[in-house]
């Protein structure tokens, strides 16, 4: 008799809002992770549609009436910084390269958030780990494209759709 592997039925409830058919809402984000050959810094640039940011900021203030409205996009930046867990590191050692926050700005129809990491050698550029689990109970773009270019002319990319939260990429 075939032995069946027994798994505990473990269906977690996650509170993603159910979006109706909004084929024409943008709801897409791009993140580029590149090694700047001049500075030897890892530069991480998150590019959001301002349209999406405005929607979320509006919802945030609707549900947090006491929030400080002076810096309305800060709430969004804080949300992204606290929920996007992106690490760069080596295959054998722990992933210690946390990202430093550089700044954020609006430009045209986009909203950018900038981060950097400061690797000391190529040994620290072997692996990228991404964990967006913190976003399970709130907004996450339906289509999130990550472009990674650490070695010159060796671009890699992956997409996390709305139900995908973790990704690991060997460089």
């Amino acid at each position: 008799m075939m032995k069946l592997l027994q798994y505990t039925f473990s269906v977690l409830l996650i509170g993603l809002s159910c979006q109706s058919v909004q084929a024409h809402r943008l709801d897409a984000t791009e993140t580029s992770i590149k090694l700047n050959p001049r500075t030897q810094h890892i530069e991480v640039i998150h590019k959001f549609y301002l349209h999406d940011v405005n929607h979320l900021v509006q919802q945030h203030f609707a549900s947090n009436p006491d929030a400080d409205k002076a810096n309305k996009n800060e709430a969004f930046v804080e949300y992204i910084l606290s929920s996007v867990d992106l690490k760069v590191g080596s295959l054998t050692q722990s992933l210690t390269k946390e990202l430093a926050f550089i700044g954020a700005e609006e430009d045209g129809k986009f909203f950018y958030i900038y981060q950097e990491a400061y690797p000391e050698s190529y040994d620290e550029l072997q692996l990228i780990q991404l964990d967006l689990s913190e976003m399970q109970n709130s907004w996450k773009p339906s289509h999130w494209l990550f472009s990674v270019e650490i070695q010159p002319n060796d671009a890699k990319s992956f997409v996390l759709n709305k139900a995908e939260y973790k990704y690991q990429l060997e460089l």
Partner: protein
Amino acid sequence: MGQLMFRLAFLFCVFFSGIAHSAIKQTKGDFEDKFRQLDEVLPTPNDYRNAAGEPGRDYWQQQVDYKIDVKLDESKRILTAKQKVTYHNNSPYRLKYLWLQLEQNKFKQDSIASLSSDFGGIGRRGPATIGPTSETPAQISFGALRAQQWLDDHDIGYEISNVRDVNDEPLDYVINSAQMRIDLAEPLEPGQSVVFKLDYKYQLLEENAVSARAGYEHFPDDERKGGNDIFLVAQWFPRLAAYSDYEAWHNKEFLGRGEFTLEFGDYDVSITVPADHIVASTGVLANEDEVLTQKQKERLKKAEKTKRPVFVVTAEEALENERSGTSKQKTWNFKAENVRDFAWASSRKFMWDAKGYHQDSKEMPLVMAMSFYPKEGGDLWKKYSTESVIHTMEVYERFTFDYPYPTSISVNGPVGGMEYPMITFNGPRTTWHEDGTRTYTQAEKRFLIGVVIHEVGHIYFPMIVNSDERQWTWMDEGLNSFLDGVAGREWDPNIPWGVEARDIVSYMKSDVQVPIMTQSDSVLNLGPNAYTKPAVALNILREVILGRELFDFAFKEYATRWKYKRPTPSDFFRTMEEASGVDLDWFWRGWFYSTDHVDISVDKVYKLRLDTKNPDVEFDLLRQEEADKPVSLFVERERAAGNETWVKRNKDVSDFYDEHDRFTVTNKERNEYEQMLADLKPWERQALKRAIKEDKNYYVIQFSNIGGLVMPILLQLTYTNGDKEMLHIPAEIWRRSPRMVNKLIITDKELEQVVVDPKWETADVDTENNHYPRRIIPSRIEAFKAEKSQEKVRRDIMHDIKTEPKEPETKPYKK
């Protein structure tokens, strides 16, 4: 990289089996013909659709007319209908059976869509689910759970009965998932028509629960006991599947992503709803005396000639309406001619505004633009919905044809954006605040204007230019996104719906993509693939490759050729090429049939010098060249040390060669030169003489194509005197050498710099290699840091704040 190449190769195998199995193969070397003509990929032209991409001399399409009596049971949210269909067989073939699409059955548990749903899979529509991994269990969202429970609690799908022929004799039929085959009593001969009838009913879907493209939305907080609903009714009747010259019956079942394609026909639909409902619908209201008040009719008449929309049902009247209720019923009768589908909406919550749009058209001089929306739409809708409808028609008619229907409607409901003939569903709303006011953000305003333009644009593509959405999403979404980008930018250039080349760069560089020419249900990332990339491609075709004059003529030719007809991708490709008079096979092959991206690099610039052969000139130049070489380190250090050479120390010992260097010209060389001139043919001598006289600069610029997609090289030349010049090198330069090419530039001026695509018009993914000499282009972060370094935000306030207050030092001052 190896992995990437493997994946691309794999995709080519899957999607281009026609190419892969081509009898013509390159089996020596690695030459790839980027300009290979598409004839062997496109279907063979015939008398139904010809080689020019237009309907052929024997073009035909079926016609299906419907007469439907439908009743809405508001409390149970059930539709019950009786339908009479007249099917006109215009094909040259005999039909023994008819296929119908039953899209409501898509939501049944035994449909292909339900059974084939990949839990947590890529590109699913509807609420989120997450597949299990080795580390985490599967996860399901509240939304997905709600959808599952809603579907469990309701009896979904069609209940079909009484399928009979014109003599009331029962007809045999088979229902297979979301399709139905009716077997005709007698085969339907070419040119003949057949009538059949059927009854059906089905449970309307709660749109917010199941993420359909239509359904009802409940408003529990309205004052009326039990609240109110908005009903958006679409894909609501068993619809005849398309039957075409190129695919016969279109039996691709509805899986949720690939939308619809139907036959044109005339509709006579009677809709019975609660008497206090307002109904918006495809078609023209044929019994307004029975359903509208005198005041409403007068307002509608007034709306025909007005600067701004006129309310047929005001906000106050709608609010009063939604507070009450009635047990009475009214039947609204709508008639529509030559439409490929029929949709409607009904609610007692609707206010209704209208404005006549007058166009210079014999076919339809007056179009009534109208909007229907609840108080939740509020001022946003009052100001911008109907105006956006009219703006769309004004822009689109320049690129296509006059809007041919009598009405164009925008309805607010639970659907974010969806299109049908003459009627569109659009989702943006205002936000309610505790003080009872309603406001909206700038983002919501842009969303409303953008989505109305987009959905009304769909009335042209694909509701009139009837492409097959189920097969090719890009044919309507791509063309429409291109045009809504034009209309959006004409409304306000800041509106975020533009389709600039830079918007698609990251996606085109990524490896999670499929060619545009991919069936709708198989596309991995529908937004960038079927909307943005084709829209950007057309934008580039218009602005960079063909120019507006050639492009606009060809695009309009496509639209008018296929108005009320059924085009395929090849008809679009062929028409654009044939009407513009430009070979575009390379463009379709690169942008639509491949996943290549644009990355053209300028690698080197060589400066050439004309060899005059004249020893008096050339020897002197060689002497100068030698003198210009850097001095050797040995010599430099000897000089620095003050060491004199033997020659200098012994000047009394010298000879002929101390006076004549090795570049000294003798008559031996001069005689050889004169003899060479004498041996030249007259035209050779003339050419050399002129070249010497003109004394131009010769530059050879070397380019490599890293991305693979061949494109024109837009070259900016900057000269040392400050002059700038643009050179448009056609894509054909790559035809025999798709990876590396050289271009000769002959000029009077000295070249200082060359830049490829300086205005970012071609979607080039790497702009750093577009400069020669290479220029350091700061990354966004570097530019941001440089800009921000002057700002107060850069102060170390955490440190500075600890500074103790200090009295200023004062100096005694005397006058």
